[in-house]
């Protein structure tokens, strides 16, 4: 017996009525907001959009070349330098920095047998202003006095440490208020900026009175 195509008996109509009486289920209140969010993600711009699609091979290649080139530019000279002993600009700067930091004297390393008057005398010109040495001399005088005199000078706290290198030009001395006693050797344009940035580290902190 084949089933009737459109069942019309009473029980089946009751089933149909029962189903039609089912309380309709409604979408949640956040439905549209969530949908907008999901569609927004699909349409996202910038990086999200870039990664939502397959990245072209040429873009990957170009990016890889740029990254690898940058890495090679900075790392290979260093490797060569270690092997051959050649000096790179970075090493020159590092060397100068090391030289500048070498004469730093901590307050605790100052000899305690220095007379108090001598200390005050040495400290006085430094407090009076920039552009003068520890004893109040002009930069020209410092250059004339030469390396030996400066090397023998006693450094007290609050003073700026001189460097045991000869000057090349007068302008090297005029770096600023606290670097006037620094004697510079072959300061070129590149390393000068580095020295300027390091000048604060040359000043020995004053001890608390």
């Amino acid at each position, binding site marked *: 017996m084949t089933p009737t195509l459109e*069942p019309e008996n009473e029980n089946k109509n009751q089933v149909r009525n029962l189903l039609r*009486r089912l309380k309709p289920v*409604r*979408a949640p209140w956040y439905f549209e907001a969530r949908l907008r969010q999901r569609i927004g993600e699909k349409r996202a711009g910038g990086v999200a959009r870039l990664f939502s699609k397959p990245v072209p091979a040429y873009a990957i290649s170009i990016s890889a070349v740029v990254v690898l080139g940058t890495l090679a530019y900075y790392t290979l000279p260093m490797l060569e330098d270690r092997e051959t002993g050649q000096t790179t600009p970075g090493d020159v700067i590092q060397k100068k920095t090391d030289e500048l930091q070498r004469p730093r004297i901590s307050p605790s390393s100052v000899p305690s047998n220095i007379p108090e008057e001598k200390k005050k005398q040495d400290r006085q010109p430094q407090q009076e202003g920039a552009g003068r040495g520890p004893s109040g001399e002009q930069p020209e005088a410092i250059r004339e006095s030469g390396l030996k005199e400066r090397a023998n000078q006693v450094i007290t706290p609050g003073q700026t440490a001189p460097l045991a290198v000869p000057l090349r030009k007068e302008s090297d001395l005029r770096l600023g208020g606290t670097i006037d006693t620094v004697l510079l050797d072959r300061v070129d344009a590149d390393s000068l900026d580095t020295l300027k940035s390091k000048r604060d580290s040359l000043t020995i902190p004053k001890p608390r009175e």
Partner: protein
Amino acid sequence: MSVSEKAKPLSELSDEELIAEFQQDNEAAFTELVGRYKDPLTNFTYRFLGDWDECCDAVQDTFVRVYRSRHSYKPIAKFSTWLYTIATNLSKSYLRKRKFRSALGLGTRYEDNAERTIDPIDPEPRPDQLADSAIMDERIQQAINTLGMKYREVIILRDIQDLSYEEIATVTGLNIGTVKSRINRARTQLQEKLKDLLTD
């Protein structure tokens, strides 16, 4: 589209006119379509899946697919049948995933529909409980959940969503005779499962 039609508010346009507007990147038309169909689709997918979370995901997926595939809609079919076709296919995918998870033992919280018959937990609730429509809805939903997928989709589309046989045939890809036959069988099965409710 004529000028006078363009001047009409979106709420007065037909579904087909709205999707045509949306195909011309008028997103307000899409919003209008969502407003029209979010509740019917939620009702359909909930009755089909029997799970609220999956239902919400399926309806969301349906509209996202409409959004992305709007240009694939051809005006030869009604928009509603196109939409129900997408929703039905996605719902079936959810059921298959559930079945797969159940087979793997990853998620056993669902009663798998398949071809198994699972009787409602309490076949004879008290009369005062029957009076409660919410409980009765739950009973009916449990009965629907026990139907096989092919019966479930046609009876929901016909008796809950009120689609015509022709529309159901378009949505399911079956011929009308098969649709009517399946509806008949589905009703017979439900009649058996819900006979205590039908005697009232």
